[in-house]
């Protein structure tokens, strides 16, 4: 193996946070086969799956591109992605609908587009409304199918912390394992850094094995025994909850074991500096937060810490404020109150797409084999509804970014008026080599995808 004489801890220090352009990581030819499509030992380059989700929708008249197939012209809301040089990586899917019903604005679309299934309402009449997912969200479907031997099965993070906290798990979390079982995102760049590169991260070639790892696993055996004893005394619902907790304990144990036994991370792996905490009370800080998190994501995946991620950019309904526009009202309030073709909502959607473009470029600039992380990614980007003003779930805003290791052509606009949005999910799964006979529930049930997305 080629030996690197780099102080990896210091190599990228300060590069996280958007102040400095993402550094393209040096391709280490010795690590790859001759054609650059696989590792030298013949194992294929891994595929990565991500979800980029923002609340409160788009301005549909400013979202849908013109032209179809590969002859398409971006709309003004998609333009930021094209301007950032990402057109070849984009598949725009327009005209699709959420087919699982719309019993509650924001909730229904979020659950529908993320899981292909209807929501579970938790509204016993005289108490305030809440809802939860009935099925796992697609990121967890992928993570469960791939079972990658990475330190984290999936990574959940978010940019804006002002998520709606009182209407159940649907609006609070993006990633779900099932009903009332959400995977809370980390909003702090510092916390995400610690998770990816803090305690438990093994530097390439670092041979030290910490005896505490095994001792921590031992203690967790006692915790598991307690859970099994307790489980016998619980009702069915609580058993499911405790089983979820138990699965988390098993996950922690296997992560501790993995730290003890895993091979060093790929040599493309470079450890950045800790970006620290970043506020969110100005437009500049909002950008910095978003970009620090995007950089950490790219670096984390270069180190193969995880292969599945989700970014809850901003929550649905919640009082998220975007400072870079000429209004102090929350995004949600603007979607309801702003008349005409909603220029301020449009500005916000444009801002979100600029930040999505930054994230995609962070992946694109991370080389791997003869391509980059974005070549090997499938990223679903969408929102909780189409028009915030009407709570509509037709003409749904959906983007797929990345080429899925060659399974997605890119540079397409595929329009299917009234098409079932679950088809896009099915096709994303297929692009990850996860081929299911069917996916989704009720109106969201599909048995095929969107073959036009393929190369």
């Amino acid at each position, binding site marked *: 193996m080629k030996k690197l004489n780099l102080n990896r801890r210091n190599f990228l220090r300060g590069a996280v946070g958007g102040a400095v352009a993402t550094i393209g990581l040096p391709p280490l030819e010795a690590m790859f086969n001759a054609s650059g499509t696989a590792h030298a030992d013949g194992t294929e380059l891994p595929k990565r799956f991500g979800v980029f989700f923002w609340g409160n929708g788009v301005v549909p008249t400013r979202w849908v591109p013109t032209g179809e197939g590969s002859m398409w012209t971006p709309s003004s809301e998609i333009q930021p992605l094209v301007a950032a040089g990402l057109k070849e990586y984009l598949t725009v899917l327009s005209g699709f609908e959420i087919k*699982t*019903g*719309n*019993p*509650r*604005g924001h909730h*229904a679309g979020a659950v529908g587009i993320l899981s292909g299934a*209807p929501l579970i*309402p*938790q*509204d*016993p*009449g*005289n*108490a*305030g*409304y*809440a809802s939860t997912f009935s099925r796992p969200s697609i990121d967890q479907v992928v993570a469960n199918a791939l079972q990658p031997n990475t330190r984290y099965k999936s990574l959940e993070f978010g940019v804006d912390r002002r998520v709606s*906290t*009182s209407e159940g*798990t649907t609006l*609070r979390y993006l990633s779900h394992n099932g009903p*009332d*079982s*959400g*995977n*809370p995102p980390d909003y702090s760049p510092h916390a995400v850094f610690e998770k990816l590169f803090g305690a438990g991260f093994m530097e390439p070639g670092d041979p030290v094995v910490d005896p505490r790892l095994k*001792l*921590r696993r*031992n*203690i*967790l055996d006692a*915790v598991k*025994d*307690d859970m099994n004893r*307790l489980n016998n*005394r*619980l009702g069915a*619902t*609580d058993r499911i*909850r*405790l089983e*979820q*907790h138990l699965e988390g*304990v098993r*996950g*922690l144990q296997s992560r501790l074991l993995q730290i003890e036994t895993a091979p060093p991370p790929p040599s493309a792996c470079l450890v950045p500096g800790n970006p620290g905490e970043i506020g969110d*009370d100005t437009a500049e800080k909002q950008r910095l937060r978003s970009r620090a998190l995007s950089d950490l994501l790219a670096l984390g995946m270069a180190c193969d810490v995880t292969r599945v991620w989700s970014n809850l950019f901003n929550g649905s309904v919640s*009082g998220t*404020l975007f400072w870079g526009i000429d209004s*102090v*009202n*929350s995004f949600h*309030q603007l979607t*309801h109150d702003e*008349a005409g073709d909603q220029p301020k909502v449009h500005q916000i959607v444009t801002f979100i797409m600029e930040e999505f473009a930054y994230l995609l470029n962070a992946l694109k600039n991370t080389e791997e084999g003869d391509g980059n992380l974005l070549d090997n990614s499938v990223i679903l980007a969408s929102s909780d509804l189409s028009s915030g*003003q*009407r*709570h*509509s779930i037709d003409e749904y805003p959906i983007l797929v970014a990345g080429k899925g290791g060659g399974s997605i052509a890119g540079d397409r606009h595929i329009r299917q008026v009234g098409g079932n949005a679950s088809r896009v999910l099915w096709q994303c799964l297929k692009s990850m080599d996860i081929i299911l006979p069917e996916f989704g529930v009720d109106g969201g049930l599909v048995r095929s995808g969107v073959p036009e997305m393929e190369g």
Partner: protein
Amino acid sequence: MTVLVGRRGPRYILSSELKANHGFAMRIRTKKTWILPLLVAMGCQGEMGIFADVAPDDVKVIPGTTAPIPDGPPVYQHAAPNLRRLTSTEYRNTVQDVLGAGYMVPASLPPDAATNGWMSIAMSSISVSQSGVDKYETAAFEIAEHVITSPTKRALLVACAAESVDNVACLRDFVATIGPKLWRRPMTDVEIDAYTQPGVEAATTLESFDEGLIFALAGLLQSPNFVYRTEYGEPDPDRPGLRKLTGTEVASKLSYLIWGTAPSDYTLGLATSGKLSTPAQIRSEAERMLASQRARETMNGFWSEYLELEPITSLVKDRFVYPEFDPALASDMREETLRFMEFLVFDARADMREMFTSRTTFVNPDLAALYRLPAELTPAREFEQIEMPVEMERQGVLGHASVLTVQSHVVATSPTYRGKFIKTALLCDPPPPPPPTVSTILPEPDPNAGPQTLRQRLEDYFAEPACGACHQLTDVVGFSFENFNAIGRYRTKDNDLPIDTTGSYKGESFMNMVGFSELLAKDPDVMNCMVRRSYRHVMGRVEGKADEPLVLELEAKYLASGYQFKEMLLDIVESDAFLWVRDEEAP
């Protein structure tokens, strides 16, 4: 689908206003669930009852509440026990009380959440995620290392010095002493060994006795027996099909409810000597606990949730329009309300309807300035109790800046939020969401019509039947607060026009928020809702049909007590629902 027409007494019938609009009250429980589009399409035509708690004939089981309900006179039916995760506050309190006072647990814990208005409901229903498990582990080691490496704390908890690595007896003794306190119940020998043995292994491997203590303690803190409250009782031959909570379980349940922490040695002593096994004994201990300062602190959390004050310190208001609003003022606003509620419950022992009528309140200089109080009512420094002058046209909790600020937008007031809050939090009668596909855009003002107040614009909006049917329910009461701006300061004009705060509530007219608050105080629905919401908080779930007989009984007792809040809480604690659960293992 079956439609039931108000067969269960006045509480289930819509307000007179609604009856006038819709002619009858409907209450439907949908079958598990996705039949909603049809119902929502109905808009406000009976929507107030769509999700109510009376089951139509085709649904015999209400998930999470009880078994099929037999016909016959209504009797309370017991619910299954539930596993309730400690909130982060309860976790921190427990650690501090068991392992040493004065230590603020700094660790990041899995986030709290609320469902249907209460954390207790979310904590009884949501699962711990992978990242939650990680956070619990990190917190457990952080706490254990802090406690064991602090000589004074260690001395209080550990009988032996940091001596030979193989002092198994001392390590076991540590687990057997601390474990039951953290777990709020006795431990079996198997359980004690289960945490001693890996502790011994850690001590041996790391060649440090104290490392053994740290690992054992970190394990105890990660156990489900610490993280969850597990009050599942034991079978009672006299009441087949039910389980009665054990004394230590009752001690735990009472302590978390009233003190927000693990039971004290005193309460545990009552439990182990069999003095927490009858409803009267439980009530008596609850009464003792309610007399303590700790009960006041815990009840502050209760009212903060009840009145939806939690988000106030993270609210943002327009810094040009409201330059005085910052997190410190927001925190003062919340404090005013919490002091007021504490005063009513614990000091004045008031009829709780006074929460809407009292002009007593608590202000510091910043709040006095916000309220433009005269100099003689402005405290020099700290909070002081004052009487709000009548001419201020502000009384009760709905006149507090806290409530008015939370239920407003960044710049503008929101009669809709304010009305929705009153219906949801105070009347247990939440309005429905906007029907899908209806545009929610407020029509642009007619440029030829001249300036309008927000009320005038909203009233134009009511002309649209798709919107007005519902907005009338919320906004009409919300208008009574229009002379309080988005941070609760009094104003007489909106958009340079005089403000109209008049309206009517359940057939009676009011002039402004004072008049409306008086009407709310007279409405038994408000106090009945308080019983209902308190019951949910204690039980960690929303009541179902099987709870109705008990809830009705509690409402009647509350009325009879002269709406004494502590009495109502004690009545819940003394009830069958507190002490007994359904036996899930019973045939």
